[in-house]
């Protein structure tokens, strides 16, 4: 074995193959990041520069579009508050439902547990538009259209299967012996859950919560179809910039940046937690 081989990190390719792979990885990365870069740059341009056919990367940045997007009439803070309430609310309700469901399936499995799990996740195979009419009619009858409660319920239902699945997989990584030891030590099911299982599964639960929060925050189909103004979220706010007086790229981009910024910032701070949670128990 040569010295260069010894120094090389395990699994890393050397030479031309390695360089090509690195270039490919960068290309894919930049391609995926490009829309975000484009939106941020466009938001900092004037409408005139933004609409120019030849793309410009060097320009004098302006916050004019942001000022316009945040102007009093735009209602940004109203939409943002709705987004926070519905995303946070659906995440908390989702966790409150997913934890006991996953607990029962992980620690007291029945013959139908596997089937139930697959069935729950299979509901995600159906496109949302497929159930739009019945949901809309039921919501209209119950007076839930354009309400925060109605949207929170929809977001909860939308994310629940994936939340149960995730929490279930974290619970499965906890040895059953620990649950049994707690039961012999005198703990009730609730005490076992709150004092033993939840503290152990905390990274996984945090990760599940973050994912649910992101999915609810970014949801647009139900927000656009089931709300008008009262419960409308930032998705509706962003969409509102493409109508009316015409298309204004810079203002639309600024609105998009303002919509995605909170969740990107949250995701940035929580990325370590997310990675830890998503790989929780992967290596024993």
């Amino acid at each position: 074995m040569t010295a260069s081989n010894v120094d090389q990190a395990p699994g890393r390719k050397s030479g031309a193959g390695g360089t090509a792979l690195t270039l490919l990885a960068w290309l894919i990365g930049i391609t995926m990041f490009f829309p975000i870069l484009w939106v941020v740059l466009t938001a900092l341009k004037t409408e005139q520069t933004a609409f120019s056919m030849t793309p410009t990367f060097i320009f004098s940045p302006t916050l004019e579009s942001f000022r316009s997007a945040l102007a009093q009439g735009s209602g940004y803070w109203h939409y943002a508050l709705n987004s926070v309430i519905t995303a946070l609310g659906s995440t908390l309700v989702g966790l409150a439902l997913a934890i006991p469901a996953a607990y029962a399936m992980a620690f007291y499995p029945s013959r139908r547990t596997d089937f139930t799990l697959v069935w729950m996740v299979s509901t995600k195979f159906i496109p949302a538009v497929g159930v739009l009419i019945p949901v809309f009619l039921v919501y209209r009858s119950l007076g839930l259209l354009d309400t925060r409660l109605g949207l929170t319920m929809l977001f909860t239902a939308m994310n629940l299967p994936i939340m149960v699945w995730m929490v279930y997989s974290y619970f499965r990584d906890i040895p059953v012996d620990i649950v049994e030891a707690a039961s012999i030590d005198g703990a009730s099911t609730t005490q076992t859950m709150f004092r033993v299982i939840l503290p152990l599964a905390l990274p996984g639960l945090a990760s599940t919560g973050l994912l649910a929060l992101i999915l609810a925050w970014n949801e647009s189909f139900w927000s656009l179809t089931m709300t008008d103004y009262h419960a409308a979220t930032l998705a509706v706010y962003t969409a509102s910039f493409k109508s009316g007086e015409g298309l204004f790229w810079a203002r639309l981009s600024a609105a998009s940046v303002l919509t995605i910024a909170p969740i990107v910032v949250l995701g940035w701070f929580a990325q370590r937690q997310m990675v830890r949670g998503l790989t929780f128990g992967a290596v024993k």
Partner: protein
Amino acid sequence: MAIVELKDVAKRYDSVPGKKGAEHANAVEDFNLTTKDGEFVVLVGPSGCGKSTTMRMIAGLEHNTAGEIRINGQDVSDVEPRDRDIAMVFQSYALYPHMSVYHNMAFALELKKTPKEEVKKRVQEAAKILDIEHLLDRKPRALSGGQRQRVALGRALVRQPQVFLMDEPLSNLDARLRVEMRAEITRLHRRLGVTTFYVTHDQTEAMTMGQRIVVMRDGRIQQIDTPYNLYERPVNRFVAGFIGTPSMNFLQADHQGETLKGEGFSCSLSAHQRTALGDAGQRPRCWLGIRPEHLHQVGASSGSGRLEGVIEVIEPLGPVTMAQVRIGETLVTAQLGAHPGIQIGDTLTLAFDPDHVHLFDIDSDEALGVAEAPSASSAQATA
């Protein structure tokens, strides 16, 4: 302290979640046992024999599908584990990873809302007995295997339960630590006098720790007895082969009048053995069981009560040497002296004392009579 009674206890799985084809499995059948107050009972047997299931039924972690389990006269079959006043030590230790050693040990008492001072006192006492006082602030991940084992014992100890249940608690430790902890658990039992059930697949652990041993196989009790009686008077070929290291040697023999003849050997029967075997016409064949420690190396010229074969394996263990000798189709293990002066490929002649011979039915494997205590009047082995 308590008397534990298991009466006609059975465990039947109608189906196993996630496993097809395992329907209607009988994990334990007709289990009957009554302990003495403060007795140390060991459940031993190969994997899947039902020993852990039996213990889990006593703990209440599994529900017995038939029979009764009584602790101090009270039927606990439908009582939750937390209300049975038992403590259990798990094979995996099952310590709570997010709690310190102190809180692991105090958890059960805190749940019972025991006053803090009392909790502290009992944890300190248990920690002192187990010599883990200096570890109380640590988390389980910062402990070695042996230390975790002590904490698991400590967690059971602070409860001051009526019954201790230990499910293979030493199997994750290295050989040296296992021997140390074996002695420590025995000492602890003598000191506390709490009725204890101990599950193991290791017959050495069973023999050294148990006051009574329950040997199990395929969900059924094979024999319940003291270590001495299990060794000296096994009731069937399974128990005879399971108890003792290395295992007992079994040779098929033909019953001819007052002698037994097999491939390369013959031995005459004592009056007791003749009675046990009955007529040669009734039982023309049987199994002859000889423990390795009852085979002795003798000179090739000697003529009576002998086995002769070629040495295939030699295992020097220090004070003794194990030799595996091919006799016809059978590989026989003999325990020889420290320096037997033998080599692989040598022909070795072994003598056995007919007083220590065990006889088993060729079909049912049941023991035929029990080997008599060694005496001058017992049968003589002949060539």
